[in-house]
């Protein structure tokens, strides 16, 4: 599904990613943990195609396509979805109109006709329930005046609607109370399946109690320094990230 080889990237001439190797197969859930500034969100940004990042070395293959050659919209149309750490508020664009536009642009890319209004409404209703999204928010401006929890739920609602092959969750848990975290994680779990993969980026182990990963990677200073199973997350929770500094010396 996603193969990252020796990925190097920089922002304003400063190298942030220093050779990432990662393989995510169909249906797998991978978690990336690491201290602040280790490059977790940068990896998400590079994969989604944020413009201020420059890839200097390496390659990324996404389901047979050279990902780095694609524009952000084409990455989305090919089936990649990034749930933002800080979802953007856009006054004047209604949530429902935004979802309809996005869904139909992706369908058009795949050669499918625009979705019928009735079918669209049915799909929206169904996916709203998945994240217990307040129906009143659908006609409001996109994320405008939403609480932190509502914004994150809206990200997962979009993910559910657009039905990507790979969902990247960038610190979706940060700023969520435990109830909202349960709802968000519950939504993601219901979406898991043999054809869908997830890359869960988080600072805290707590989220991984709810979204149980197949693999856990530790990112430090722009490199993956350790890979393991879900037990690694517990170890990190216990020991913190300080031991990584020593580990890095030995790598």
């Amino acid at each position, binding site marked *: 599904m996603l193969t990252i080889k020796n990925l190097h990237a920089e922002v304003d001439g400063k190298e942030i990613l220093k050779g990432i190797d990662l393989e995510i197969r169909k249906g797998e859930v991978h978690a990336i943990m690491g201290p602040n500034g280790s490059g977790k969100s940068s990896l998400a940004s590079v994969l989604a195609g944020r413009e201020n990042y420059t890839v200097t070395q390496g390659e990324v293959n996404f389901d047979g396509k050279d990902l780095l050659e694609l*524009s952000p919209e084409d990455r989305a149309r090919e089936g990649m979805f990034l749930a933002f750490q800080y979802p953007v508020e856009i006054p004047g664009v209604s949530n429902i109109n935004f979802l309809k536009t996005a869904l139909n642009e992706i369908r058009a890319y795949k050669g499918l006709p625009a979705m019928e209004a009735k079918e669209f409404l049915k799909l929206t209703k169904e996916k709203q329930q998945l994240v217990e999204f307040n129906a009143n928010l659908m006609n409001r401006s996109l994320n405008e005046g939403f609480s932190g929890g509502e914004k994150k739920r809206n990200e997962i609602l979009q993910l559910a609607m657009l039905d990507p092959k790979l969902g990247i969750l960038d610190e979706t848990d940060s700023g969520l109370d435990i109830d909202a975290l349960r709802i968000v994680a519950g939504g993601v779990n219901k979406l898991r399946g043999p054809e869908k993969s997830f890359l869960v980026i988080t600072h805290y182990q707590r989220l991984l109690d709810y979204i149980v990963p197949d693999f856990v990677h530790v990112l430090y200073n722009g490199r993956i320094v350790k890979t393991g199973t879900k037990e690694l997350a517990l170890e990190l929770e216990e020991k913190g990230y300080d031991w990584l500094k020593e580990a890095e010396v030995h790598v």
Partner: protein
Amino acid sequence: MTSDITTPFYQYILDGGNGLTPKEDVLYGVRQDALARFRTLGLPDLKTEAWRYTNIQRVLKEQPFVLQQQALPVTAAQLAPAFIPELSCYRAVLVNGHLQPELSELPAAKDITITKLSEATQQKGFKTFFDKHPHLADQPFAALNTALFADGLFIELKANAVLDKPLHIIHVYTLTQHAFLQPRHLWIAHPHASATVIESTLGLHNDAVAFVNSVNEVVLEENAELWHYNIQNAVQNSRHINQTAARQETYSRYHHYNFALPQATMIRNNTSVALTGSYTETDLHGLYLANGNQHVDNHTFVDHLVPHCNSNELYKGVLLDTANSVFTGRIHVHQDAQKTNAFQQNNNLLLSEKATINSQPQLEIYADDVKCSHGFTVGQFSDESLFYLRTRGIGAEAAKHLLVNAFAFDITDQVHIPALQHYLTEEIRTVISN
């Protein structure tokens, strides 16, 4: 009748504008008074407060203009692009300010009178209201228009008349040489009458420059209602000074929408409303979408003279390239005008680092039991918003269009005719896509 409007022209006016108005003209006296007023007021320059961001003398000195241009022939095929698709309407076509009945489709005379202003000088409505609007008195370009206008449109809605379809007025300009034109209009809605009027422009002059200095006096008598849409979609070789001066009697409702679009080089609007009767409703809404090196200057004035009037003002601007815009919103609440509600808002979206906006609210409030507010914002297209939309599969072009439409939505959403709303949304799309 031909003269330059450079310094010699100005001198020419100062010298009395000899020969511009024949003595036998029924308006000779009115025109002489207006010339005298213009001489006293003088041409504004950058030291004139109301013109400090619009260098009108430079525009006037660009080239010599002739002062009169009769209507030239216009074919139906030339006219067709000015029509608004799917809009069922009456049509009044003016060429260089002169009404062309054979190109128009006017409503039956039972409810409404539509004639050339030059043929209405003996009408009671003309005698009562022509050149009487209090806000025109200190405007040099209004004085110049009164002195020099050749013709325009006289519209009189009879009492209780309800116009069943919108009236679309198409201002066609077609010139053989650079011309300084002075169209003059007077619209009167008698008690309980209601109508929708849409104005737009069709520029057929290619190399010749059209400098249009128009004045429109609008009168709403008791409980009359007028929806007035002014779409300023002129061609590049044009400069416009447009003064719309409305007055409202008790219970009347005036909804004014201004859409300043490309490509006129300069647009200056003086849009003003004098509230002379109580319990009126006034909407002054504007969307200016400017590109290239367009200069768009909106001056608005809401004059609350009596108690219990409501005015709502919202102007939004989207500026591209090196476009330059000015917004000055004046609200005057007189001492007697208690229980006034007057709101004003000006929001701008700069889509280029080289675009500029000068915005200035001017609130003068002399009554103590009123609700008034004003606000101004300027924002830029957020790269983050654009990126967010693109990560959802929405292409860069579609995303930009979505964001601009979202910004303009507050205005376009209020357009109460679906065909017109669709037309304007498409015009916005075209400008943004280019």
